């Protein structure tokens, strides 16, 4: 695939641990870029801070590696200054939903024309595995040694409620579907939010009885519930298990958007 041309080979080896899901997500994003036929000179990758946010460093385009949580605010500036650019944000659950939560809802509300890919590994990976706003209740982390006692955010639902034009969720297991979703998001004017449930074997799996990478991927596969299936269960009056999360295209709509190329 030509996406190889998009990698900065001189930045290798990368910082990701063995078995990390971030490489899969970067690869799927570049596959979508390729599908759309974007050119490197017209594309900018923007990120905050975290393992996920290191992604733009490995891609050969202009990029802004900004401060923790603020990628969307920086990206809004870039896009409005130059709507001709394709703007993609890589972010993590901590970056997006904890310290950057406010920017997240406001970027969705304004519906700024960009694609936001969130690698949700349910933990602060880079800093060593502290609980994040998406750490599931009961899950172990270095700041929740007896299991998290707080409810978790559903990031996709948050984006829908706040107004994003395109919202989808997949996992690092569903690579084909993920590429399609990112490409569909890139085609949709306005803010596209693609949440990718992904594995952090080092800082999540290790503490949560998912020691092998394959255990984590199996966990993601078996806990993903196709949105159509969920709707069927609801219609049939059946209960949807709490620990499952929906996957699929969750919203595609045409609210007024900002920064759309004319």
């Amino acid at each position, binding site marked *: 695939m030509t996406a190889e041309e998009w990698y900065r080979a001189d930045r290798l080896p990368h910082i990701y641990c063995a078995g990390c899901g971030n490489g899969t997500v970067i690869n799927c994003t570049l596959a979508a870029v390729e599908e759309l036929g974007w050119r490197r000179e017209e594309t900018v990758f923007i990120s905050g*801070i975290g393992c996920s946010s290191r992604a733009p460093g490995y891609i050969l385009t202009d990029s802004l*590696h900004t*401060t*923790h*949580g603020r990628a969307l605010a920086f990206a809004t500036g870039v896009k409005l200054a130059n709507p001709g650019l394709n703007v993609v944000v890589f972010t993590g659950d901590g970056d997006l*939903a*904890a*310290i950057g*939560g406010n920017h997240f809802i406001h970027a969705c509300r304004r519906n700024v024309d960009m694609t936001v890919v969130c690698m949700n590994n349910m933990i*602060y990976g*880079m*800093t*060593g595995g*502290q*609980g994040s*706003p998406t750490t599931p209740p009961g899950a172990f982390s*270095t*700041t*929740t*040694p*007896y299991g998290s006692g*707080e409810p978790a955010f559903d990031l996709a639902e948050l984006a829908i409620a706040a107004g994003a034009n395109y919202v989808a969720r997949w996992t690092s297991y569903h690579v084909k579907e993920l590429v399609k979703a990112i490409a569909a998001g890139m085609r949709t004017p306005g803010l596209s939010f693609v949440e990718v449930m992904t594995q952090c074997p080092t800082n999540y799996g290790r503490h949560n009885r998912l020691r092998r990478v394959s255990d984590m991927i199996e966990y993601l596969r078996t806990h993903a519930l196709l949105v159509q299936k969920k709707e069927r269960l609801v219609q049939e009056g059946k209960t949807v298990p709490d620990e499952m999360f929906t996957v699929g295209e969750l919203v595609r709509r045409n609210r007024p958007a900002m920064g759309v190329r004319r």
Partner: protein
Amino acid sequence: MMEIMEGSHAVAEIVKYCRPQVIAAYPITPQTHIVEALAQMVANCEIDAEYITVESEFSALSACLGASAAGSRVYSATTSQGLALMFEVCFNVAGMRQPVVMSIANRSLGAPLSIWNDQQDSISLRDSGWIQLYAEDNQEAADLHLIAYRVCEDHSVLLPAFVCFDGFILSHTYEPVDMPTQEEVDGYLPPFVPYQRLDAKDPLSMGMYATPEYYMEFRYEIDRAMQRAKQVLVRAGTEFSEQFGRDYTGLVEGYRLDGADTALVAMGSICGTVKDAVDEMRDAGKKVGLLKIRTFRPFPAPEIADALRDVGTVAVLDKNISLGNSGAVGTEVKAALYGSGIRVLDYIIGLGGRDVRKEDIAKIVDLAEKGEGDMFYGLRTEVL
């Protein structure tokens, strides 16, 4: 009891003995080991405290401010970008006179992104009304927390404090630490008695609007409290020395300054390296000494002038740079020695984790003696 402890764990352990009632922190390298250890202690019911896993440093310090205003002893820890994000709240904590104690595992500020040590983060908040104490080693990092709570909560002070210790160099290094017992700490640090607190039965408002007729007086009062903090620090340090046998009586500390022609001035872990370098230079017949600044705010200008009165040349080591001027410590030492005729030269060193070795200290002394200074030391000119 003497234990081999990681700097972060020594800090967490001593904070536990200080009995904070509310701890709020957001993880950031190299502070994480402190707050992870405290989260564990709270979860294990080793401390009777609330641990809030807030969503940012901004929230961490805001929650601490709220909890302190409600009458609790509070604790937080951060560094670098996290402290930068707290900038606004820092001024509020000091302005509302809340005795918050916060550890700073000193780290450089981006951009470019760096996780390594210098002291730019805390130095950049020197004007915020927080007492700033700098530790040379893990023992001092632990001890200064006890002193900080004592001083901050004193009703003649009522100010917050940073206890600064160099990220990685101390936070991730194992050293022997003489850890006091809970009883010993209780004997030194009484329970927190708020001067005022939010109380529905006796309502009061904090942080309200001050018109130009009042604002300056508020700032003046904070500054006066800073000045009073000097005596309180000396008293708390003296009592600490009496109880624990480790000497914190001075705001500054001289090392082999007797008969010195040239004095180095430094803060934090670099002082350990400087002491070794001074020993070697003294062995070689050079008359060199060190003045360690432990208390950077309130700034001990008269104490510095007094300690350095007999030297001819002063070389200040600054792990920070006030861009467009020079290092913060150098600038203030020059002001402290103004009119004394002593030559003061400033050296910007060790930014973003650049290693500083004994040989470098010796070279800086040579430069100072030749009158060459007010410069970045150790630049790699080949990459400029």
